């Protein structure tokens, strides 16, 4: 099957840099009800943050001339939020890592040699315990997908928990 081959091609081994989690500085996050069709840094501090209005009827701002209403959303209890970034893997880096291991994260044992296009390192660049969720002209409210999605971890824990045998 063609789709199965594709899935195999995409398989990756992900290595987390635990040190980055400890060092991650608190970040301010905004989740907008739109998609900017590119991933790039944006001057949020200059354009967006100062334009946010904290009125009697909640948070308000506009993006690209469209009105947004916002609310603060907390990360579910027992969880921490991290902004994760995948490191670019150059050939040279792979070689170096295979020889010396990862000096910073000694806890991670390198069982197998690293392969380009297969091994990925991710690290945290920021941490958060809450973020601002924005809706187009209306406050997203409890029915928003994001709120519902945040209920999944507790449900997942419940359905994957060991059921005591009688």
């Amino acid at each position, binding site marked *: 099957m063609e789709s199965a081959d594709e899935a195999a091609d*995409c398989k990756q081994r*992900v290595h987390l840099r635990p040190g980055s989690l400890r060092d991650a500085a608190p970040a301010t996050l905004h989740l907008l009800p739109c998609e900017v*069709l590119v991933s790039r840094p944006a*001057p949020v501090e200059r354009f967006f943050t100062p334009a946010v209005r904290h009125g009697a009827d909640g948070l308000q701002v506009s993006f*690209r*001339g469209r009105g947004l209403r916002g609310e603060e959303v907390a990360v579910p209890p027992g969880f921490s939020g991290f902004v994760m970034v995948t490191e670019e893997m150059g050939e040279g880096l792979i070689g170096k890592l295979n020889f010396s291991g990862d000096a910073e994260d000694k806890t991670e044992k390198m069982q197998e040699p690293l392969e380009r296009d297969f091994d990925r390192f991710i690290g945290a660049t920021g941490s958060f315990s809450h973020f601002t969720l924005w809706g*187009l*002209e209306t406050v997203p409210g409890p029915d928003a*997908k994001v709120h519902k999605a945040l*209920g999944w971890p507790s449900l997942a824990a419940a359905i994957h928990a060991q059921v005591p045998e009688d």
Partner: protein
Amino acid sequence: MDLRELEKDNTGRCRLSSPVPAVCLKEPCVLGVDEAGRGPVLGPMVYAVCYCPLSRLADLEALKVADSKTLTENERERLFAKMEEEGDSVGWALDILSPNLISTSMLGRVKYNLNSLSHDTAAGLIRHALDQGVKVTQVFVDTVGMPETYQARLQQRFPGMEVTVRAKADSLFPVVSAASIFAKVARDQAVKNWQFVESLQDLDSDYGSGYPNDPKTKAWLRKHVDPVFGFPQFVRFSWSTAQAILEKEAEDVTWEDSAEEDPEGPGRITSYFLSQGPQAGRPQAPHRYFQERGLEAASSL
């Protein structure tokens, strides 16, 4: 003109008004409505009403008020000062509609076009004067759109007074000329002292007239475009001039209500007759629980 109220928050609308002259509470008054800054791609649109007792209309005419467009800035300032001196018989009120309010109205989920916004703002100001106790008996309005339908709508809303909506009312009726001067003076001052909500570097204050066909205004727009945020809120995003620059120089943005064809559409009709069916090769859709939460399994980064 004291616009501190606007400078405190220029992201919405700001209504300012003079004290109501005592005589306007007792005697029948004539009220004029006009606007400034409807066309520009930059800055607020200002609506103004000016009113005075019918018995004092001659005094207003004696000031030689005229359509603000035919006056120089100095002449407008002088007439504005004169009318302020007539504060015991001439009253005014303004509604300053920020460019952000204009953008978000016109680009709303339910489009609120500039004509409707203008009509409602004018009606709101007339209502405001009535609520302050001004004895309005005659209203003159410079038209936006078709004068006949506009007049009928206003007349229906304010049955107790005689409403006249006319094209070029600002050069026909002194009380509308006076309103046009209040509106224009306020608009010019608001633009000149605009407090940008954004913390912009190298802000160039030479934006020309603000009209879309002004080369200086266009150059300013191109200089201040940000690839992600577009423009500062001083710009009316809903203007085609602004949209055209964004299309070329900023990243594309899609919204949940963007009109777009469904890429997962039904596909070719013949695909239903092939052995594999239209779903072949497409990964199985996740359970509804996950779809409703926008959750997907991640198999790669």
